[in-house]
């Protein structure tokens, strides 16, 4: 090959790839507002994005799968956990998740917490082509077992962060796989609404803001775990 041929190869290769890339970029920028629900980008969400950056959350947590690998990915966190749980956690991470690996308290104001939660909730609505993937085993298990209201409440309130049921969940609090065989429904209800009444030093946060019907569903689900 002559040097002049090599030079042509260089220019054509570069130009072709750049044209394809810029063309797709143009189309992507047109589609992005819809795919990311940009109409929901309220001033609160935008302020939340800045809280996210200002505190450098991204060098511990990944979001959209990018960032530090020291803490969980938060792409769908706004959907997985209730706003109430997230706010409690951000106020005092150690109280909610007293694991050895800690998130330092960022000392956010209530306003900043609201903004950050609004940001995470918006992020969770971004259309990510199906990422993160649904765990295959958990998915099969979900299909095989009946999905009750109580079970959904158990995960949406973040109970799985501390408690394990049938091998899935955290190990901060006790394993609840057979809780129904050792505790009465009344005891369970009281533990959920007022944990310190049983154990004065309990780290478990109170979930007394749950509606009566929700509490009943949750207690029923747990009591059936035998």
């Amino acid at each position, binding site marked *: 090959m002559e040097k002049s041929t090599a030079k042509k190869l260089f220019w054509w290769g570069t130009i072709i790839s750049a044209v394809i890339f810029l063309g797709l970029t143009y*189309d992507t920028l047109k589609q992005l507002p819809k795919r990311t629900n940009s109409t929901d980008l309220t001033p609160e969400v935008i302020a939340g994005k800045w809280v996210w950056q200002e505190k450098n959350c991204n060098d511990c947590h990944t979001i959209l799968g990018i960032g530090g690998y020291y803490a969980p990915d938060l792409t769908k966190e706004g959907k997985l956990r209730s706003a109430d749980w997230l706010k409690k956690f951000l106020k005092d991470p150690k109280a909610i998740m007293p694991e050895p690996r800690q998130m330092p308290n960022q000392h956010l104001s209530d306003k900043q917490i609201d903004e950050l939660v609004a940001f995470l909730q918006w992020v969770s609505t971004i259309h990510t082509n199906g990422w993160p993937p649904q765990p295959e085993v958990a998915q099969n298990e979900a299909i095989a077992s009946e999905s009750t209201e109580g079970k959904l409440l158990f995960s949406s309130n973040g109970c799985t962060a501390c408690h394990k049921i049938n091998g899935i969940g955290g190990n901060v609090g006790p394993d609840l796989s057979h809780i129904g065989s050792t505790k009465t429904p009344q005891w369970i209800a009281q533990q959920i609404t007022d944990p310190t009444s049983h154990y004065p030093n309990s780290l478990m946060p109170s979930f007394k803001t749950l509606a009566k019907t929700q509490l009943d569903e949750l207690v029923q689900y747990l009591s059936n775990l035998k």
Partner: protein
Amino acid sequence: MKYQTQKLAYPYFILATLLFGLQVIFGLLTGAKYVWNVDPLIHILPFNVSREIHLNLLVVWLLFGFMGGTYYMIPEESETELYSPTLAYIQFWLFTLIGVSAIVGYLLGWTWGMPFTEQPFIIKVGIVIVALIFLYNILMTVIKSKKWTTIQGVLIAGLVTLAVMFLFGMFFMKNLSLQYFFWWWVIHLWVEGAWELVAASLMAFVMMKLTGVDRNVVEKWLYVEVGLVLFTGITGTGHHYYWIGTPAYWLWFGAIFSALEPLPILFMVFDTLRMVREKHLEIKNRLAMDWAVAGTIMHFLGAGVWGFAQTLPQINKWTHGTQITAAHGHFAFFGAYVMLIITLAYFMVPQLKGLKEFNQKKGFAVLYITIFFMLMMVLALTVAGTIQVYFQRVLGFDYLTTQSYMHLWYAVFFVSGIGFVAGAILYIYDFFTLKQA
């Protein structure tokens, strides 16, 4: 060394070497947090601060290395003294000042909070000014000499792209997906575009000097090499656009183009080996030569093989955002850029110091130690990442429970890291004590 102003490269290499040492120490501190979950430094140096310093020092010392390599090369390529030594000094001190301010700022919690581009806006403006001074000085030297070589052309194209792409990471965007879309123009189009051009050009220069292979042959293959890099690399950016809110066609374009990305790197390996085979000179600096050859092979393994392993969307869906990415990151940066800068240092610094021959024993020890321990680190992170993919992504275990299963491999990673740091310290010692043999 033929021109006085080539000496300006020396302070750049000194600072690159010192910052390399600091970078790996912060790496060790960051890695320790995975091993000892209860972090005694949580209020002084939490993980995010430690990581941002580790990442930023990497980028800054590599840039110092590129700048040093460029200042050494450009007068010799252009056959003239550098346009302005004063500007080169101003650039050096300004960049040092900016670097120090950024690191001190991070320790005090002053950050912009996007990985790799954590520099607050004002610091970024400073970096742009440094880049402009640098570019101006290099361009004026080449214009003054009226001698254009392909090696210069590729270098300048790389430097211009490097400066322009940085602009896309400077501004706050309301939409996270959009912010990340352009963030990749800095990150990907730097490491798989602009930096590859700069590196290929410097490498071509070093290989030409070491082997005495004809310029026309070197430059012909340089064209092919960077042509392939840009053809696959530009649209290959698409492999970062699978899951960030961007349309699904990126799954196709990203997959096809990035699957081709190992080709130019494989080509570089053959090209380097071919030059060694066809050498016209007796190779005097065996150390620089071995670093160069080993570097291209590690570049291929780290960027090519470890990158390819997870670049297809069917796999990336499971591995994205896990320690598999960290394994690839460490391996690729080491093979593609760290080894290149050390090659440049072992080729250029003895000449800057006026040494005809120097004792190469320690330099070879550094080569073996750093490669061995980097391979161990990468394997440990790869196993940790595989466990993470299986437990967390496939089985659906929660994040922290999965981390506990990865613990052993974090320990292997950390111990290997200590070995790597030992190699880096030996390198620093060798760098400052190079003597006539």
